[in-house]
């Protein structure tokens, strides 16, 4: 088996054994279910008025997409909690030498950690996605738009996971890693807030912001530039995490 998948599978097994992972999943699903039911009730209340409007928004725009957008906001603090133990937890428990002495290259160790954490986050996204998708049994959904939104969410989660793994590789304490990852992710989420307040939406600063690229997916637009942006963030963060692991081979802890 490829060492990357071996380490990813091992991360999964360890997550399954930890109450923390189950508790986190339960809290996310419960919170999103509450949001979903609120949005659905609002739509049911609004539906009679919408019936008379031409090109009125449907359940996809009023329930499914807002729910997924809400999930994207929740991922900002959530992903760092998942990734904080990737390396910082190993260092605190003095288990990192097991990986470093295994002869598996640093890049493959980092990729294994990334795939393991990313897989868990994707399961959370999939669990939340079942809520709006369940409406397909009783109404018609714009499945193309939902698919684009889920793809965007997955790419967004991948970029956040990359940031989280990087911070976990840099910090010696899991809590510090989570805080740093959240701060960096939040910075990338609001980096163009000032420009937007001034009505600037198409400048370089906007390109740096995570929401600029995620919003396209929520509108049903799958653009290679947005895919490339998220892939670039993930690739750069993982490359830096690998460099950090190279440097750790030279540190006393």
């Amino acid at each position, binding site marked *: 088996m490829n*060492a990357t998948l071996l380490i990813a599978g091992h991360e999964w097994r360890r997550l399954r*054994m930890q109450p923390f992972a189950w508790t986190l999943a339960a809290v996310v699903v419960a919170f999103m279910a509450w949001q979903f039911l609120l949005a659905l009730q609002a739509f049911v209340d609004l539906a009679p008025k919408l019936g008379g409007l031409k090109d009125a928004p449907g359940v996809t725009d009023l329930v499914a997409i807002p729910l997924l957008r809400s999930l994207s906001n929740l991922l900002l603090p959530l992903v760092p909690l998942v990734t904080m133990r990737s390396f910082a937890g190993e260092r605190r428990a003095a*288990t990192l*030498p*097991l990986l470093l002495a*295994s*002869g598996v290259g640093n890049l493959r160790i980092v990729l294994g950690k990334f795939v393991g954490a990313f897989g868990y986050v994707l399961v959370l996204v999939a669990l939340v996605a079942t809520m709006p998708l369940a409406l397909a049994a009783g109404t018609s959904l714009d499945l193309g738009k939902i698919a684009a939104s889920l793809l965007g969410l997955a790419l967004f989660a991948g970029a956040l996971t990359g940031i989280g793994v990087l911070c976990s590789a840099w910090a010696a304490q899991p809590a510090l890693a989570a805080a740093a990852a959240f701060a960096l992710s939040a910075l990338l989420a609001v980096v163009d807030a000032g420009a937007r307040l001034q009505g600037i939406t198409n400048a370089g600063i906007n390109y740096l912001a995570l929401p600029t690229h995620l919003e396209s997916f929520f509108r049903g637009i799958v653009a290679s530039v947005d895919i490339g942006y998220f892939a670039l963030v993930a690739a750069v963060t993982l490359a830096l995490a690998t460099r950090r692991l190279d440097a750790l081979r030279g540190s*006393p802890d």
Partner: protein
Amino acid sequence: MTAPVPTLALAHAGRRIAGRTIVRALDLELSRGEVLGLLGVNGAGKTTTLRMMAGVLAPTSGCVRLDGEDLHERPELGRRRIGYLPEVPPLHAELDAEEYLAFCARLHAVPRGAVASAVARAIERCGLGDVRRRPLGALSKGYRQRVGVAQAILHEPDLIVLDEPASGLDPIQALNLRELVRSLGRDHAVVLSTHVLPDVSACCDRVAILHHGELRHAGNVHASSTTSLRVGVSRVLREQEWRALPMVVAAESLDPAHWRVELAPGSAIDAFSAAVVAHGFGLTALAADAPPLESVFLAIAASDAPAAAA
């Protein structure tokens, strides 16, 4: 004819951390079938040396070679060929011993079909049968240490690096560990770091003593261990009677019934004891006098001036 390539070779290997020299220009070689005891006081550079041997740390000068190949140019060499037990066993507390060891086996590229047998063998060798299904976080320190040893040996590596493996073991477990290390030493190259000098005497063929990051002594553990003996006899003897034995170079009376006897280098103890019995001295006890290893270690530990490696 060319000499066989040693399993492990440190060639002027040194390590600086944060501008401070932790290990300075070490030259060491180790082959299969040898157990090397690495001794030193706290801060002597033992753990850093072991990390370099295991591929966890890269040397900042010189190199570490595994079967003649530079370990840090080809780190993948270590995957099948090095087993490493760090000072703190790297255990994942939420897994049980079988799950953990199965992961370690796969991590060290044991073929999927051979994992179960490798894990079973390691569990048996380290006496983990009773706790194989218990979470590692719930194990006693001694058992955790044994799981750590098991993960280091389960893939049958060429080189086994053990950092304080007897830490936390009770006396019986420590004796079993000595047996295990001796048996590992028959087919592998083993490096054992310990503070317990009798462990080195009992397990190791060779010893290296580090002090202030320098190699101060390297030699055979048993080379000079039979030169000084403490002998009990029932007869009252004179020194000349001892000197009459061909292998005795000096004798000193400790009390009427006990003597410290120095043998000529290379003399066999069994030949000496046979001569004592043949001369009717009334042999009542025979033991090594102050162990030479301990003397050497204490002398080095007491010295603070850097010196060239022996």
